[in-house]
């Protein structure tokens, strides 16, 4: 015992602990990951796109998304109203950004945030709606 040998039982126990913890960790890692906020945000982004895609923008004869994507002039004219309209459609704690071929409406997107997004094709180009908890 003076030769510094580890007891065989302790070695066996260590191997056993590693085995058991390994199996348990397998269960923990193998099950579905914790529910993320992403599906919820995706749904809100789709909702916003659906609403802005079917509601007429005042004075244009087109839906908001189509009117925003149509031309630079149309985009600049509608930008303040569109921002207000989208903010009204979303819950108060959700921020948004709408990207069109002529520019963006909404807030700058913070890095490393979970973002829900959806892209809607219009006849003037694609429009992307991104939302996140802000």
């Amino acid at each position: 015992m003076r030769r510094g040998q580890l007891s065989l039982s302790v070695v066996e126990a260590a191997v056993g602990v590693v085995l058991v913890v390994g199996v348990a960790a397998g269960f923990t890692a193998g099950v579905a990951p914790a529910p993320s906020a992403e599906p919820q945000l995706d749904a809100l982004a789709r909702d916003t796109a659906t609403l802005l895609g079917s509601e007429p923008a005042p004075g244009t004869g087109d839906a908001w998304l189509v009117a925003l994507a149509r031309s630079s002039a149309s985009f600049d004219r509608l930008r303040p109203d569109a921002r207000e309209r989208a903010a009204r459609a979303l819950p108060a704690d959700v921020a948004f950004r709408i990207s069109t071929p002529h520019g963006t409406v909404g807030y700058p997107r913070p890095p490393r945030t979970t973002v829900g997004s959806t892209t809607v094709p219009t006849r003037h180009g694609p429009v992307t709606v991104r939302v996140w908890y802000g």
Partner: protein
Amino acid sequence: MRGQTNLFALVVALVLLTGATVVGVSLADAALAGADREPIERHAAAATADRLTAADSPVTTRANVLNASRVAALNASRLRELAPTAGAGDVRVALDDRTVVEWGAPGGGWTVRRSVVVRSRAEPRLIRANLSRRSTVTVPGGVDRATVTLDPGPNTTLRSVRANDRVVLHDGSGLNTTATVHLDRYEPTTLRVDAGANATGRVAVTYRPRIVDDRVLTVTVDA
């Protein structure tokens, strides 16, 4: 001496192994229980919200546009019919903070929020015009249908009605009727009655302006 040391090591080893097993198994059990239970609530809430906001749902006029009177008529059994998955537990459907349908008393559970607009109809508006003075009536944007009543005077034949130059009513032998016409809700509509220079008679147009409110639809399922 040697045997006793081994016995001590064996006890320590057994204690370690038992402890690790208990901790490990309880951790795995908690993880499994959590994984097993939550998706039911999550899927039920998401599916119920999807069904409610879909374009072909009985409470919507278009996707994400709820009809206020049909929402008011919603009750627990109709909601269960619409979304059988909601029957998995206690459910609450609310618009902003106002509860629409509830059964059981969902305490925690999973909540899904969706952006919708609720459309209700205001009191009908009536516009009358005397055809000897004017032949056009303007309906504001956002209205998708209107009722037109034509009452031609003597010696007057009204053959057609146009909405923004699109013919919506026509009869070669003369119109003397009440009819509902569908309008483009994206812009204001000018209804023009094709009347000759000396036409007499009346036209009345009735429409119901829409009131649109933004709401957050909340579906909570607690299984």
